[in-house]
């Protein structure tokens, strides 16, 4: 049965690749680092929209459960297709951390005052340095969440539940049960793509307008 739609899968793998790329570029390739950050900002905006208006397994209202629901899952209650009650909160934690990370990067200034995010001209040097310090700290938080994410995948893997395959093919074993994936209307996809592109494009134009 289908569990992840194409937008979610593309988002996931693009995000993973862009995070690795951003990390690689953060020291000596800040031009690329900025572009990568703008791309992440765009797909994040798309994902947040998709969490409100996307397919059934993408929606926050579908996968966010109360603490009691999380506890019940931990005690062995069955979970339907998509994020389980615990994984749902880990997704929210990663999305929130990424949003904060991108936000800090937009205002960050390097110590020499030559390299900066496209919104740094609206803050003074010291504030920009604080944003840069925060950008470094929040990265560690992000790495921690990614490590947890990978450990969880490994944990389910040794219990014969493959999480990686479905994120590639979009399909999971029918035996898992639960309701089928409810795709979202095409116009909602179009709105999401427009919002994402506008975010990335807007940041890119601000960058162009404020660099030498």
């Amino acid at each position, binding site marked *: 049965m289908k569990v992840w739609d194409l937008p979610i899968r593309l988002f996931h793998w693009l995000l993973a690749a862009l995070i690795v790329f951003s990390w690689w570029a953060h020291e000596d390739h800040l031009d690329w680092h900025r572009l990568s950050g703008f791309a992440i900002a765009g797909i994040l905006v798309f994902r947040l929209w998709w969490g409100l208006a996307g397919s059934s397994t993408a929606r926050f209202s579908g996968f966010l459960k109360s603490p009691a629901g999380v506890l019940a899952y931990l005690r062995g209650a069955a979970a339907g297709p998509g994020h389980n009650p615990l994984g749902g909160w880990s997704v929210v934690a990663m999305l929130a951390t990424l949003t904060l990370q991108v936000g800090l990067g937009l205002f960050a200034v390097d110590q020499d005052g030559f390299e900066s995010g496209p919104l740094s001209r609206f803050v*003074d*040097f010291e504030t920009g340095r604080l944003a840069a310090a925060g950008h470094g700290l929040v990265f560690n938080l992000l790495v921690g969440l990614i490590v947890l994410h990978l450990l969880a995948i490994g944990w389910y893997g040794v219990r014969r539940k493959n999480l990686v395959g479905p994120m590639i093919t979009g399909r999971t074993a029918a035996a898992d049960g639960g309701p089928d994936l409810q795709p979202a209307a095409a116009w909602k996809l179009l709105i999401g793509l427009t919002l994402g592109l506008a975010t990335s494009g807007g940041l890119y134009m601000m960058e162009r307008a404020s660099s030498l």
Partner: protein
Amino acid sequence: MKAFWFAGIALALTATTAFALDAGDQIKTRRDGMKAVGGATKGLYETLAGDKDVGKIKAYAARLKQLSIESQGWFPVGTGPSSGIETKAKAEVWTDPVGFKAAQQAFVTQAGKLNAAAASGDLDKTQAEFGALRGTCKSCHDKYQTK
């Protein structure tokens, strides 16, 4: 005799504390100075990329030149990592004094060229010298500053 020892220890402690405070102050002066350099650089960058206000460009360039000269006094002996106070200055600043002096001089020279270009009102030249200054900052920081 006991009193003598107490007095000696007290004196030694006071001297050590005074020295540590002094190194702390000197490191703070360096840090504040470097922040001022960064602030002026940010301001000049934004002005050159933005409204190109000649008055502001001249002021930032003059400030950078002034700070480059002051920066020669920001690295007194005893303000490195061995001071026990947190600093990003590497021990190489003091173990490679010839190399470090040359790097400091490069800053003074390049900030001077930048200021001369800005004072002449030639924006293209100012931008070129500013670009060169970026390399001057980086090469010294790569060598003499911890990440």
